[in-house]
């Protein structure tokens, strides 16, 4: 991969001068091998407070019962399943980046896959906590697993989307974990080799005896591809199955065949937004601008605008089909969404998911870091509202008007959600401290071919088409990590 020279028209994936393999290792391992800075501590303490809130709120729920949430006889799911779907969706970008982009040989993924996969795992953990805590009797959560048992050989209901869900989420979690960890092996070995004492022992254990010889690398590559192959269908299947929790029901607003593709697009949409939210901060604080470049940011923004538009089309399609179906219940469900008591949630969703991402059509905006960061958060707010709209506004007014009700969250609902965000960031910040946030080995692959300095060398050699070179140099304008002055004289 690294032997050939890449077309000059391609934008560099690593910027900066005098980047060596050693410098890459040093740069990336900076947060792992040094004491944390103030920014990390502030973030960590805030996140830890959130995680503590989560522990308090979930313990309160376990102690007193689900009644401490705002649910009622009509609205049986609200913030819990909204949070669950939101987190599962966020996880999707990680798998897409690590698996699908690997299969398509999109090398730019090498800089962001590690963090994205970590994010996937932590997001799925947050989602899984909802799966357990939303149950009326969480201590019996294992009953949804098809375990051999002595309850009279009771089996699970394979017709139930919740059982599919259980399979989907657990498969997803285990495959993601495996993929992530496999990718980590050479990097853990790198830390091991540079560490001493206790650290060395610990990293030694976790590197599984990585030796770095050719055979190991060869097998590593093979395993990565195999795992990518296994993960790829999961990108589609997990959220498809999550969407079936709703699509296979009889409730107007849920019973919709468009849900699987619409949910998958939404998941990728929110996942990339979350990757951006995290990495835009991380690259600044950890000084990784040379490895996570404007090219990455712009690419992700392009995916966001694509998936956001798919989601927007899905929203409109739902409306059209509701009208076209002629079913009064279906029609009412959608009219109620946009004009009923929860109209504000619907329009929040529409604004955040469909309208505001259209700003990314402007290059100025999608290459502007603060703007991108704000939009990435707006997207995740919008995606939370999307799930809230689907779940609550469909349930609260379904078939029999006598049972129509409103849902009002309690402090516990809010705390569990805010707490899950705290839990997520706690895990992510710990990850930044103990493991490399960028796949060192994989980034090194790009140095000889796709880095700015390699390309500069090429230009200096002077065999390249002048127009292409000019175009390349122009493309570098947007990079905040490129020293523009060195191109002034060329």
């Amino acid at each position, binding site marked *: 991969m690294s032997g050939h020279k890449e077309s000059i028209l391609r934008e560099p994936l690593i910027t900066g001068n005098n980047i060596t393999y050693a410098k890459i290792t040093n740069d990336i391992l900076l947060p792992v091998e040094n004491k944390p800075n103030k920014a990390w501590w502030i973030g960590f303490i805030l996140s830890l407070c959130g995680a503590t809130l989560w522990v308090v709120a979930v313990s309160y729920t376990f102690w*007193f*019962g*689900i*009644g401490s949430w*705002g*649910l*009622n*006889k*009509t609205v*049986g*799911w609200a913030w819990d399943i909204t949070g669950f779907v939101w987190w599962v969706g966020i996880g999707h970008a990680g798998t897409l980046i690590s698996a699908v982009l690997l299969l398509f040989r999109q090398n730019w993924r090498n800089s962001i896959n590690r963090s994205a996969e970590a994010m996937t795992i932590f997001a799925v953990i947050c989602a899984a906590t909802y799966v357990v805590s*939303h*149950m*009326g*009797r*969480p201590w*019996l*959560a294992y*009953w*949804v697993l098809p375990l051999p048992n002595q*309850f009279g050989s*009771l*089996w*699970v*209901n394979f*017709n*139930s*989307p*919740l*059982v599919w869900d*259980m399979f989907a989420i657990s498969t997803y979690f285990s495959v993601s974990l495996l993929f992530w960890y496999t990718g980590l092996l050479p990097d853990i070995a790198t830390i091991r080799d540079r560490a001493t004492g206790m650290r060395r022992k610990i990293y030694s254990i976790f590197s599984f005896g990585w030796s770095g010889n050719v055979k190991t690398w060869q097998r590593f590559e093979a395993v990565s591809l195999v795992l990518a192959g296994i993960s790829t269908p999961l990108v589609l299947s997990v959220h498809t199955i999550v969407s079936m*929790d709703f699509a*296979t*029901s*009889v*409730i107007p607003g849920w019973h919709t065949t468009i849900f699987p593709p619409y949910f998958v697009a939404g998941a990728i949409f929110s996942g990339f937004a979350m990757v951006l939210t995290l990495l835009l901060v991380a690259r600044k604080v950890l000084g990784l601008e040379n490895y996570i470049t404007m090219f990455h940011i712009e690419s992700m923004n392009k995916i966001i605008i694509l998936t956001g538009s798919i989601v927007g089309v899905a929203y409109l399609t739902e409306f059209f089909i509701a009208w076209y179906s002629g079913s*009064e*219940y279906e029609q*009412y469900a959608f009219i109620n969404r946009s004009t009923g008591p929860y109209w504000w949630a619907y329009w929040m969703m529409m604004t955040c998911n469909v309208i505001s991402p259209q700003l990314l059509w402007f290059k100025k905006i999608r290459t502007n870091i603060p703007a991108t960061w704000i939009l990435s958060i707006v997207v995740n707010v919008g995606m939370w509202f999307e799930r809230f709209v689907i779940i609550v506004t469909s*349930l609260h*007014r*379904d*078939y*029999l*008007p*006598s*049972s*129509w*009700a*409103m849902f009002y969250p309690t402090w516990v609902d809010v705390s569990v959600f805010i707490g899950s965000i705290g839990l997520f960031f706690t895990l992510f910040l710990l990850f930044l401290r103990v493991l490399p946030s960028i796949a060192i080995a994989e980034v090194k692959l790009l140095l000889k071919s796709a880095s700015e300095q390699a390309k500069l060398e090429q230009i200096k050699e002077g065999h390249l088409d002048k127009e292409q070179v000019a175009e390349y140099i122009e493309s570098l304008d947007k990079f905040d990590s490129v020293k523009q002055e060195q191109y002034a004289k060329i």
Partner: protein
Amino acid sequence: MESNKRYWKGLEEYKNTPDFVENSKNEFAEPLPIEDVLNEAGLSTVTPRRDFLKALGFGLGAVTLAACQTAPVHKSIPYLIKPEEVVPGIPNYYVSSYNGQSVLVKTREGRPIKIEPNPNAGAFNTGTDAQTQASVLDLYDVSKLKGPLLKDSAGALSDSNWAAIDQFVKAELTKAQASGKKIRIVSSSINSPSTIAVVADFIVAYPATKHVQYDAISYTGIIKANENSFGKPVVPKYNFDKADLVVSFGADFLGTWISGEEFTAQYVSNRDYKSLKSGKMSRHFQFETGMSLTGTNADTRVPIKLSEEGPALIALYNAITGAGLAGGSLPANVTADKALKLVGKELLQNKGKALVVSGSNDVSTQILVNAINSAIGSYGTTIDLDNPNKRYSGNDAEFAELTNEMNRGEVAAVLFLDSNPVYDVANTKAFTDGLAKVGLKISFSDRKDETSTLCDVVAINHNYLESWGDASAYEGNYSIVQPTINPVFNSRQAEESLLNWSNGPVKEYYQYVRNNWESKILPVLGKTWVDVLQTGVFAGTPKAAGTYTFGLSLAAVIPSIINNSKALAKEGQIELQVYQSVAMRDGKHANNAFLQELPDPVSKVTWDNYIALAPKFADKLGYKEFDIVSVKDDKGYTIDLPVLIQPGQAQGTASIALGYGRTKVGKAGDNVGKNAYPFVSFTNGTYKYATTVSLTATGGRDELAQTQTHHSFEGRNIIREATFTEYKKNPSAGSGNEHGKHKSYDLWDKYEKPGNNWVMAIDLNACTGCGSCIVACNVENNIPVVGKDEVRRRREMHWIRIDRYYSFNVEGEGHAAEGEHGTGINAVTKEKEIAHLDNLDNVSVVHQPMLCQHCDHAPCETVCPVLATVHSSDGLNHMAYNRCVGTRYCANNCPYKVRRFNWFNYWNDSRFDNYLNNEFTQLVLNPDVTTRSRGVMEKCSMCIQRIQGGKLKAKIEKRPLKDGDIKMACQEACSANAIIFGDGNDPNSEVSKALRSERIYYVLEEINVQPGVGYMTKIRNTDTTVQA
């Protein structure tokens, strides 16, 4: 034979080496490496596999032992000597009576757990009302006193014993008698022959005694009017079953008026599916102020102000008789005027088959009603004065006089029997002031209530389930009250106390009742005492109902009516109606949590009273729903209540329910709502439940706990209705059941349903919406009461609910239901369209009982991850509580929203201590139905315990199940027979016949969930010429 064989363990032993000899002295041949193991070196060595396994084994064992925590011990003491009649697990039934109605009391292992109607009790004793169903809970009320109270030397009520009380009371009564002052027994109406005899005996012992009867809800007006008109001071027996035309002026005869449960059965017999099948349906006009349960069932309901009721009756009288009495015009109410003319015409057409009733307690008004009924020939047919209703015999004037006597200091002793006047009289202050002047005050109340706390003696009475007694609801009709449990607390029956104090020859009340029956009643009936205990009720041969003609002049009556009317129509004041709510009635049972949580049939409010205002009128006054307003009458009594917007309430009027605002009734009922009794006024010798008030905003807001907050059915065909005219042309009008068949299509093979297929039919024309099924279901299935806050969060647990929808009839507006279900009923049913209507007075109501539909394609079943809800081969949707993990997916996916989730441990969580969080009250639980823990879904099981019980009984008796062997709790409680349950596989069962009706439709059948409960269309016998 001695063996010379020798066994050796090794060569060392065989050779007997010196080492071996040395070692064999020790217990262990080789030294154990204890030191080595315990020193550091030993610990740091690599753990050998065997040590690891040992540690593992020990650890596992230790943890297992540690986990063997002693389970909580629940003592259950078996019978040492088993009572002959008690078989554990088999219920016993005893006949008894409640409020004069003969009932069956179901007991399990010696404790009463359910009340059912006595099947021996005649044609219209087909169900029980909610109060009767809930009454079993009163027995297990922890707020009751555990023993009698006597005033101690410090003047405070303190625990006492019966001997001390008897000594004290006898001495005091003798003193009172000797003082020449008066002794008064104050009670609500008593129809028990034995109690009346006891009181008579008491009067003989203490001749200064007079028995004053008064009812919190008085019917003195009717009694006095009948005395005036026909010389019969009685509440007559009304025969709604004989009336083809019923016209009611503010009488809630299906709910709270006189005996609603019986009237319901009579009324519905002219309107249910059997009657319709024979082509007959009565017509019902209701003219009233507040929207009553009866009003919701009327074919034509016209809102009139309280002040218009008198003029309306005069107008009707004029229309019927052609008389030209003055004051019979309603210039401000064109609709009512038009309707009255029509009603007058129809009454004349239905002479002898019509009935006019009025809810007024005004003597003059009731005299006018008598005149009208006489003119349309009601006496002898729909009204029977010769076999009168003896439930009510109170005399308001006598009670008012008692207050005066007490205030004048003429009363030496007063005994309160089944009465609580400090709470429920209009002028509380005058009464308590007077009471303070009475020397001896005795209450027979079972608790420290508003009156008994002011007494010197609280001689706590038995609950009726602990009592002997009798009742006579109608002249010549006798029923027995027999105990079904030993007295739980140290209480004594009030009659026994009176017998003791009057020093009669018989002091035991059982003996007294028996003597009374054997000497006075049984000889007439020709029965024995054992017959009484088995049958429970005897109706003697009723007297022939005489025809009575009203022959008096109305000259004195009319001005009085007009004056009353003018007094209510004060400028700038709002006419206030105080009424009994269907759930709470007069407030005597305010501590009954089942009743507090029973939604009002019309407003669906629980746990509160409120001030009902018409939508347009509230707009005019500037109040929104749930705004707290201050209600002040001209005497200065003020209460703050939240506003309820009530369509159908007459403009310019307000309604407030009585029975709330108890302060000393117990932990469930204390301070629920506000007391409206002080709004009652005493004029012309009777209590009037109408007054004028002014309202002021307080700025506060209090959300009422309603079980239904959306009130229109949005044009959905979940409700299907037709007019009687259409029905006569085409019986399937409106039902969409044109060819008598409901086709369903399946992608899958159908499951066989061998044996039984349990299904249900519900007649929307019979259901009045009263809600007694809800309480019956609560009691039968141990459904927890969750309290006001939880209801407000929409978490009530009722397995059966009654959905009540309003629609509005406006000439030229609205849509007929679309498509094949089209009918001639033009009603506006969509919330958005209703918001634009100018006139919201012409409201139609439909009540739809909703419970688990036991769908054959149940959406709940497919989504449960753990198979906790599954289908049975006999057509039921089962719920396995033990398997449920509580994902709530089933409830979300239920299109009928009938599944209920246990959000908390309602029966064992101190935050929801409404009634059940103590071992005593838990005795009310039905042992055949498990209580559900927190986190578990529940729903209607079609009383599966009853189905199993019925099957087992048939099996023991070696016979097949018969139709009617198994009855649902809701079905049994329903006076209207609106619920029909049975085996759909049996083509001759009642339910199969009902389900073949052309009126049958299935709610949401279009989503192909194949529900097992069929509904019959609502038929309205409307007259389209009357439109608001």
